[in-house]
């Protein structure tokens, strides 16, 4: 088959929107760290954009490329009662190759932390649907941290992570189209990298994995 023809029909097919279904990430980690260290890590809301993992990087054919990165994480404290807290966190992501901020995934999270006792807490974050958001229709992050997690070794702290992501079909297609526009002959490759189902799942899974590695 003529290789130019092969690439030319791949390109339009690759930018057709597919249904972005809700995806769930469920993980359990055991870390050699105290519960307070985990709490500090997960509540450094204003530092999210500068922490390891804020860019989702892939190695491809010997090159390292940032597919998407967090460029903004701003927090406002809503309330604090003892060790419990509630914050609003504004997050903006920049997809590779895209300078037009109209198609940057962005969302406001309402994050609450509630301590059960001195050695365990829960953090719950939820996308605020009544406020500006793009790329996602819904996002919930539920983290359960226990210093005496029976599934971990005696000195380890258990972290149970459950993330539910619902992408917006139309907006993900717009993001993909904006990314492919400047890509030239790399368009089919970039299209393969931007799997709609994996787009946000990979990002969130990677960021939490990288954060947990720093403990």
């Amino acid at each position, binding site marked *: 088959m003529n290789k130019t023809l*092969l690439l030319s029909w791949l390109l339009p097919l690759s930018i057709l929107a597919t249904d972005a279904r809700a995806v769930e990430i*469920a993980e359990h980690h055991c870390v050699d760290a105290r519960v307070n260290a985990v709490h500090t890590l997960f509540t450094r809301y204003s530092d999210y954009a500068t922490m390891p993992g804020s860019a989702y990087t892939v190695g*491809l054919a010997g090159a390292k*490329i*940032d597919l998407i990165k967090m460029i903004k994480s701003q927090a406002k404290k809503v309330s604090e009662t003892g060790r419990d807290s509630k914050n609003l966190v504004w997050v903006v992501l920049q997809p590779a190759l895209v300078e037009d901020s109209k198609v940057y995934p962005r969302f406001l999270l309402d994050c609450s932390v509630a301590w059960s006792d001195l050695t365990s807490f829960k953090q719950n974050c939820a996308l605020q*649907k009544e406020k*500006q958001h793009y790329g996602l229709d819904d996002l919930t992050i539920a983290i359960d941290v226990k210093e005496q997690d029976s599934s971990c070794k005696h000195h380890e702290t258990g972290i149970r992570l459950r993330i539910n992501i619902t992408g917006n079909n139309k907006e993900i297609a717009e993001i993909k189209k904006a990314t492919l526009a400047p890509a030239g*002959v790399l368009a089919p490759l970039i299209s393969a*990298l931007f799997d709609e*189902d994996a787009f946000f799942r990979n990002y969130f899974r990677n960021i939490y994995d990288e954060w947990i590695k720093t403990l």
Partner: protein
Amino acid sequence: MKTKSTLIALTVCLSVSACGVATTANSHLGNLDQTSQKMLDELKSSREQLEVATRQSERIADALVALKDLGFDLVKMLQSTFAPKPSGQTDNIDDVLNQTQEVPRE
């Protein structure tokens, strides 16, 4: 009568004990059920991730082969194409919070 009432008392006592044991057993079974469900959820999530990753890897491999066949210097091309781009202007958190309603979406 005394024997009968003693027997009744004993039976009630045993029933209550049995109920207590049954309740404890049910509670343990409930906990096991919850633990199993959590494990199943995590396994399901891992399997879905593996399916997505496999599908994605196949598509990437196909695209890489096509490009290689065309003779492109992939590394140089990737590095040049994916060089960091300046980011466009975006709202700050105060702007977002002050917006009285969500910006209309098409």
